C-alpha cells in the first residue's frame, strides 16, 4: 500500500516534471523547426547545436527586472499569470497517458499511468481549460494598457466562440464511446478492423478530428489564430506590459496547454496508447510519439499558415466550424442509432 502511494506520487511528479520541461523543449523545437522551414540554422551558439538555448533564455528572464505599470491593478496583475499557469497544469490532471505498466518489470504490480481517474475526466479537462482564459483576460485588463486590453478582449471572444465547436466535436466521440472517462474512451479504441486498421476514432470521426484540431489551435491562441498576441497590431497583446518571471509564465502556460490538447487529441482520436504491434505494456511510448507528432504539427502550422483577420476568425468559427460540428454530431448520432438499434 505504501509503495503504491509512492509510485503514484512518482507518476505525478514525473508528469509535472515533463510538463515543466515541455515548454523548454518546445521553445527550442519551435525555433529549430521554424529555422528549418525558413531555411536557416536557428539558435546555434549555446551548447551543441544550440541545445542549451532554453536554459540561457530562462536565466535571462529570471535576471530581468519585474516591471509593473503604475496604473495597473496590483492584485490582478500578479494573479493573472498564476491563473494561466495553474489552469494549464491542472488540466492535465485527468489526462491518462498510458495503460497499466510495470516499467520494464521494475515494479511488482502494474500501475495505471495517469494522475487522477475521474469518470467525467473529459469534462474536467474541458472545464479547467476554460478557466485558463481568465489568465489572459485579466492580464489584458489589469495591465491598464490599450494593447493589452485589446488582446484580452480578443482572446475572450475567440475562446468562447471556439469552445463551442470544440465541445460539440468532443460530444461525437463521447457518443461513440459511451463514456466521459478518457481512459475508457481510449480502451474503446482497442482492436482492429479487417485485422490491420486500428479502431481509432480518427477513422470514424475524420471531420470531428479536423474540427477539434482547428478549435484546439484557436483555444491555445496559436498561429494562425494568435490574435491575443498579434505582434504586428498589438505589440505583444495581453502580455505587453509583463516582464521577467511573470512574463515567462504565459508562454509556459501556452506550451503546457499545447501538450494537454495534443494528449487529449491522442486519447480521443488516435487511440491513446494503442498502436499496431506495440504491446499495451509499452503503450506509453506510442503515446509519447503521437503527442510529439501532434506538437510538431502545431509548430509546423504556425510557421506555414499566415494569421487570419480577426473578423474572418469570428465568421469562420460561427458560420462554418460550429455548423460543421453540429452536422457531424447529428450524422454520428443517426449512424450510431442505426447500427445499435
Amino acid at each position, binding site marked *: 500500500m505504501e509503495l503504491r502511494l509512492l509510485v503514484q506520487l512518482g507518476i505525478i511528479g514525473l508528469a509535472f516534471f515533463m510538463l515543466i520541461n515541455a515548454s523548454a523543449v518546445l521553445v527550442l523545437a519551435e525555433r529549430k523547426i521554424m529555422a528549418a522551414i525558413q531555411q536557416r540554422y536557428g539558435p546555434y551558439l549555446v551548447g551543441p547545436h544550440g541545445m542549451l538555448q532554453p536554459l540561457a533564455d530562462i536565466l535571462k528572464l529570471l535576471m530581468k527586472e519585474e516591471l509593473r505599470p503604475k496604473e495597473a*491593478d496590483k492584485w*490582478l496583475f500578479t494573479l493573472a499569470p498564476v491563473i494561466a499557469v495553474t489552469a494549464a497544469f491542472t488540466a492535465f490532471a485527468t489526462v491518462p497517458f498510458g495503460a497499466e505498466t510495470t516499467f520494464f518489470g521494475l515494479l511488482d504490480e502494474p500501475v495505471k499511468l495517469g494522475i487522477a481517474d*475521474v*469518470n*467525467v475526466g473529459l*469534462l*474536467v479537462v*474541458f*472545464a*479547467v481549460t*476554460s*478557466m485558463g*482564459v*481568465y489568465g489572459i*483576460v*485579466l492580464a*489584458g*485588463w489589469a495591465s491598464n494598457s490599450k494593447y493589452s*486590453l485589446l488582446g*484580452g*478582449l480578443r482572446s*475572450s*471572444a475567440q*475562446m*468562447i466562440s471556439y*469552445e463551442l465547436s470544440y465541445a460539440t466535436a468532443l460530444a461525437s466521440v463521447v457518443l461513440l464511446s*459511451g463514456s*466521459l472517462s478518457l481512459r475508457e474512451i481510449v480502451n474503446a479504441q482497442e482492436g482492429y478492423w479487417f485485422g490491420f486498421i486500428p479502431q481509432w476514432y480518427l477513422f470514424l470521426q475524420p471531420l470531428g478530428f479536423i474540427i477539434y484540431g482547428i478549435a484546439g489551435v484557436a483555444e491555445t491562441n496559436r498561429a494562425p489564430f494568435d490574435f491575443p498576441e498579434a505582434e504586428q497590431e498589438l505589440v505583444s497583446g495581453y502580455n505587453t506590459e509583463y516582464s521577467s518571471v511573470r512574463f515567462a509564465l504565459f508562454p509556459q502556460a501556452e506550451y503546457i496547454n499545447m501538450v494537454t490538447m495534443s494528449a487529449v487529441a491522442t486519447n480521443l482520436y488516435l487511440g491513446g496508447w494503442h498502436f499496431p504491434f506495440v504491446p499495451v505494456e509499452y503503450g506509453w511510448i506510442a503515446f509519447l510519439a503521437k503527442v510529439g507528432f501532434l506538437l510538431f504539427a502545431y509548430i509546423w502550422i504556425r510557421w506555414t499558415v499566415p494569421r487570419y483577420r480577426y473578423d474572418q476568425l469570428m465568421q469562420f468559427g460561427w458560420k462554418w466550424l460550429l455548423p460543421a460540428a453540429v452536422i457531424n454530431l447529428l450524422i454520428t448520432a443517426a449512424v450510431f442509432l442505426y447500427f445499435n438499434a
Partner: protein
Amino acid sequence: MPETLQFYLFAALAIGASALVIGQRNPMHSVLLLIASFGALAGLYVLLDAPFVAVAQIIIYAGAIMVLFLFVVMLLNAPQEDAHKDPFALVRQSGLTRVGAVLALLLLLQLSWALLSVSGLAGPVDAGGDAAVVSSVPELGRVLFTDYMFAFEATSVLILVAMVGAVVLAGRRENEE
C-alpha cells in the same frame, strides 16, 4: 469528519465570496469574486457525489457566462464607483434603501429561523439506490429526457426567446442603417 470540514470550508468560501461581491467598488473584482463563489459551489457539488453537476457548474457558469460578464465589464470600461468610498454609504444616504436593507435582514432572519427550527425533512429525499449511480451521467441523461423532457424542451424555447430578444434590442434595423 474531513468531509464535514470540507463542507464548511467550501460553504464559508461561497458565502464569503458572495458577500464580498456586493462590497466591491470595482466591478472587475466583483466578477472575479463571483467566479470564486461558483467554484466553491462546484466543490460542494463534488462533496454531494455529483461530479457532473460540479463540472457543468464550472464549464457553464465560471467558464462561459462569467467570461461574458468580464467581456461586458471590459467593453464598457465601467469606472469605479468613487462616489461611495464607504461601502455602507448607500445605506446611510437614502431612506428607501434603508428600508430595503431592513427587509433583507428580515428575510435573512426568517430563513435562518425556518431552517433552524425544522427537524428532519418530511419529504422523500431518498432517490433509491446508491448516489454514484443516481448522479451518474447516463442516469442524468435518462432522467432529463424522460421525467424532465418537457421542461428541457421548453427551455430551448426560452433560450430562443432570449436570443430573439437580444437581436431585437441590440441588432441593426432596416430603417436605421
